[in-house]
């Protein structure tokens, strides 16, 4: 079974040959190619090479065109700061005054080098993997993007007290998000990862989310012309899984703090569950601990399909060792082959 068939079978709550593995390997590609993160991202060919290399080396069931969240901020005229041992991060927020929201224009994807690079990566990956491996594109949800656009504190003032400005910002962010997601799908992406950490009750309480970001997600996902998987970037998902299911998402990535059994039960075969190895804690693991964690997760979540094994955050940290990644892949093959054997 190739990766595409494996993933599609699992998404339909059937058991494929083995548990599909989504290792969210991004900056690790630079380590594999022995170059700096900045150099790695300077050229689409590096990322294509890195993704293919890591797919084979770690038995990954996907490749991704995701560079870094702050690439979207470049499109809005914001700054990106590069680090030697972590993902590039957004610089100082560029919306200085709340009133500036009315002057903002929707960025043109074709005028943004970082986004064009993302599209180039998808096209090149598509030529090589064709329909054998899912190509995962990515967007930051319109509801979560303002944290980078204006800073969290100021954005919370908007959410709680400035409804008009909130709606205006969502209007332009939605347009951008839909255009960016659809451009990736048109270039050849199989599905879009919709990063929406603010939908997690860890960050915004459910009542507020329902009256603000929930409608934004429903409108946005409805206009994305391909499958969407929602991830809450380590935030807990359980209390909002039913709400997220109503947004049209096809899969939900849950937190290491969520009980994945319970997540699958709530999902009721309507959406697949992705997760939930603790990516930060992973930096401390050795082979033995890795094997234990992966085995435990497979035992809990794999039966009946509807499950993709992954980290809880959406990105494997730079500090995670090659050994740990290899051990994840080996354990998935050894213990994740269907039918799953009950632990004795």
């Amino acid at each position: 079974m190739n990766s595409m068939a494996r993933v599609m079978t699992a998404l339909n709550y059937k058991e494929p040959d083995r548990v599909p593995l989504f290792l969210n390997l991004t900056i690790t590609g630079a380590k594999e190619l022995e170059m700096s993160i900045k150099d790695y991202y300077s050229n689409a060919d590096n990322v294509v090479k890195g993704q293919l290399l890591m797919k084979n080396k770690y038995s990954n069931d996907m490749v991704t065109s995701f560079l870094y969240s702050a690439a979207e901020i470049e499109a809005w005229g914001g700054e990106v700061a590069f680090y030697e041992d972590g993902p590039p991060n957004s610089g100082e927020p560029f919306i200085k005054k709340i009133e500036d929201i009315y002057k903002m224009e929707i960025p043109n994807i074709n005028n943004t080098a970082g986004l064009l690079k993302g599209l180039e990566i998808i096209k090149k990956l598509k030529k090589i993997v064709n329909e054998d491996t899912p190509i995962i594109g990515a967007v930051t949800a319109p509801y979560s993007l303002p944290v980078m656009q204006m800073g969290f504190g100021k954005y919370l003032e908007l959410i709680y007290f400035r409804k008009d400005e909130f709606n205006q910002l969502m209007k332009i962010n939605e347009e951008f998000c839909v255009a960016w997601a659809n451009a990736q799908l048109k270039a050849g992406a199989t599905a879009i990862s919709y990063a929406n950490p603010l939908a997690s009750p860890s960050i915004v309480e459910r009542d507020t989310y329902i009256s603000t970001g929930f409608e934004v997600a429903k409108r946005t996902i409805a206009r994305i012309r391909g499958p969407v998987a929602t991830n809450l970037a380590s935030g807990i998902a359980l209390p909002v899984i039913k709400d997220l299911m109503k947004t049209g998402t096809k899969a939900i990535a849950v937190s290491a703090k969520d009980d994945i059994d319970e997540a699958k039960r709530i999902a009721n075969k309507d959406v697949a569950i992705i997760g939930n190895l603790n990516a930060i804690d992973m930096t401390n693991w050795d082979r033995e601990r890795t094997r234990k964690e992966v085995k435990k997760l497979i035992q809990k979540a794999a039966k009946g399909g509807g499950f993709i094994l992954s980290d809880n955050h959406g990105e494997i940290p730079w500090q995670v060792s090659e050994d740990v990644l290899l051990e994840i892949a080996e354990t998935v093959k050894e213990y994740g082959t269907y039918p799953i054997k009950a632990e004795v």
Partner: protein
Amino acid sequence: MVEAINLPIEDFQTALLQIDRIKAAEIFENIYKKKGNFETLEHMTVEALERIGVGWEDDQLSLSQVYMGGVICEELIEKYMPKCGSSYKKKPKIAIAVLQDHHALGKRIVYSVLRAGGYDLIDFGQGLSVEEIVEKTIEAELDILLISTLMLPSALKVKNVVESLRKKGSSVKVVVGGAPFRLDSSMWQKVNADADGKNGTEVKKIIEKLTEGGQ
């Protein structure tokens, strides 16, 4: 002496969780009129914020509620402190900073909670390099340095801050906080920090402990 028995801590906490500035201000004014002393107001504030902090630890409350609650309390304390003829504690000398990135929410929460608890502290800002934090700490002759981080690489860089401070002869106590320290509970020790503050009120307790009961 603080008379905690009849304080409407629960009502005040509810107002904070509902981000109801008006209701919170009304409760404050009523207590001020009845009691007239700052300690009572401070006690109610710290109690409510502590309960909110615990609620967040237990995944019952959101980071946004923790943040907005802290901001509202800080605003009220700033208004009533001079009215009561009270002032911020000048000792120990504390500062707070965000290392490397520009995500300043955690810093603001701790800043608000400490201010609401009567502590004066310096805000060094965000997006600071290791060298900048070290330089500012030495210059300000701090007793306690609070470092907030969001990204894993920034959290790991705390080790460089501590090393550099010690090389320069500083014995400042370093207290860390932020997402990477929450996801890896032993990380604060790995970066040689003196303590890990999981939320604002916990940081306040750590400060009290580090200064042997407060000054």
